[in-house]
């Protein structure tokens, strides 16, 4: 017998199956390309006092935080494909617990997000140089991304466990993804000129807390606000994790569209 724990066997399978190279290139390449293009083109358009006036230095931590969305989207997609191609049933009827399958999905989400962070850093370091981060800052960044990806991945898994139509699932996922990104501080900061409605929505967006915390960690300015933001993120991740467990308990197996 292979002595790997069931969760790790499932993670290996998650990485190897369902994810073709083109998808991975697009998912991880797109933010990297955005760093290059937006970072250079928008440099003079968007005020970024927090990062000394450099938009690319502002953008990079935002794109690092954005990896929580990438990780969540990839895992949500993987879960959906597993349902669509009956691998959920196949695995559930095998030597695995449902909890192990869920744990493997969430671990895959976090690992995807971490891989995304690595890719972002490889692209960004030549542009922004090595940021003055302490080991604690690095831990905070990784915890933030992990919690953020658990939040978004948990949400999409819960959603995917309830819906039976691919159209509906991917439409909701796309809309949510774009709202999360554009109504957050990933691309631009909240300033005194930001419309009140917009800033209210942005403050209600978990990605804003993740982006701000990562940004503060990059600039060595972590403070109480970030601790609160991280706590909010942890709370939200717990809620979506509970939702995904509930979804798994009530999942309707069988063919889906």
């Amino acid at each position, binding site marked *: *017998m*292979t*002595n*790997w724990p*069931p969760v790790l*066997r*499932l993670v*290996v*399978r998650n990485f*190897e*199956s*369902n*994810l*073709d190279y083109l998808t991975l290139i697009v998912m991880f390449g797109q933010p990297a390309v955005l760093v290059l293009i937006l970072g250079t083109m928008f440099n003079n358009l968007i005020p970024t006092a927090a990062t000394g006036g450099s938009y690319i230095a502002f953008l990079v931590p935002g794109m690092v935080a954005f990896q929580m969305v990438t990780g969540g989207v990839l895992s949500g997609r993987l879960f959906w*494909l597993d349902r669509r*191609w*009956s*691998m959920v*049933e*196949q*695995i*559930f*009827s*095998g*030597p*695995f*617990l449902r909890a192990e399958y869920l744990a493997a999905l969430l671990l895959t989400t976090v690992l995807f997000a971490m891989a995304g962070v690595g890719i972002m850093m490889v692209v960004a370091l030549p542009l922004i140089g090595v940021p003055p981060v302490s080991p604690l800052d690095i831990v905070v960044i990784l915890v933030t991304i992990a919690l953020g990806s658990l939040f978004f991945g948990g949400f999409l898994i819960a959603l995917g466990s309830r819906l039976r139509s691919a159209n509906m699932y991917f439409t909701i996922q796309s809309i949510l993804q774009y709202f999360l990104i554009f109504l957050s501080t990933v691309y631009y900061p909240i300033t005194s000129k930001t419309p009140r409605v917009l800033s209210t929505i942005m403050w209600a967006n978990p990605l804003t807390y993740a982006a701000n915390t990562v940004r503060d960690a990059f600039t060595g300015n972590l403070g109480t606000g970030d601790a609160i933001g991280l706590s909010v993120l942890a709370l939200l991740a717990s809620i979506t994790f509970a939702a995904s467990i509930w979804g798994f308990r009530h999942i309707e*197996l*069988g*063919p889906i569209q």
Partner: protein
Amino acid sequence: MSLPTGTPLVVARKLGYSYAPGRFAIRGLDLDLLAGRIVGLLGRNGAGKTTTIRVLTTLLLPTEGSALLFGTDARRAGREVRRRMGVVLQSESLDFVSLERNLTLYAFLWGVPREVAKARAEEMIELFELGPMRTRKVWALSGGERRRFQVARELMHDMDLLFLDEPTVGLDALTRRKILKYLRARAQGGLGILFTTHILDEADQLCDSISVLHQGRLLVHASPAEIKARYGGGRTVEVEFGRPLDGQEAALRRRIIALGVGYLSLPSDPGKICFRAANAEDLVAELMRWARETNTEVERLSVRETSLEEAFVGLVQAPTEPDTAERP
């Protein structure tokens, strides 16, 4: 290590599952499966075959009755019970890697050591004639090839009990024969198999016993021979007359039924009659007498063993269906 033949693998009593209150997919189902035996689960579409397999593979929890899997209640059956079972689902299931990697990846999931998995993948590729497509993505294969792959994949790990939900759908006759032969050999080695199919000939060839489900309930559990004898009358007689019977059907029908017929059918063609009975010779003699009396020429007459399919149709044909058949 295979279990001794005759060891109980599945013992279901009054098993039921309802998707919603009062909406039972199966109800009151008794089922036994022993090591080394092959049980066929037959029924029309929606009869409850797939639900039964889902309950017995612990994908669904029974809402009524009990099911013991290797002596463990299905409601509490965990990893250790499922480790001893294999299931080929009715729906296609696959990973987006090559066929060969699908086999070894699945074996990896089941904890099969790498070298064993490699050797077994070769064996399965050979057995199921999957060699030419081993490097192709499974989703790009034809329906029949994908079905072959799916059965092959399930045989990558060791098991004592195998559930097959319509495993031969879309397969050509030669491949089907090969698979059935292989399954028979595995059963002789101690594997217990629960098998659903709509190809009743293969159930006849393969199964030691058959459970017929109808609208979620068990109609009968018996050997294929018993079912054919009991519900198919043993022999099937088909007679074609030289002219339409023109209003004489009722009299003929009464005469045949009076002699004890298992199943009688007056097809839409008014010049044909078909019946099944154990005492087919007596009935044929009576039929010929009637033909002489009424100056009706018999153009063609055949007597043959009733097939399982004919017995099955006689068994499950609903009373609401066209009045072409009756079971006195």
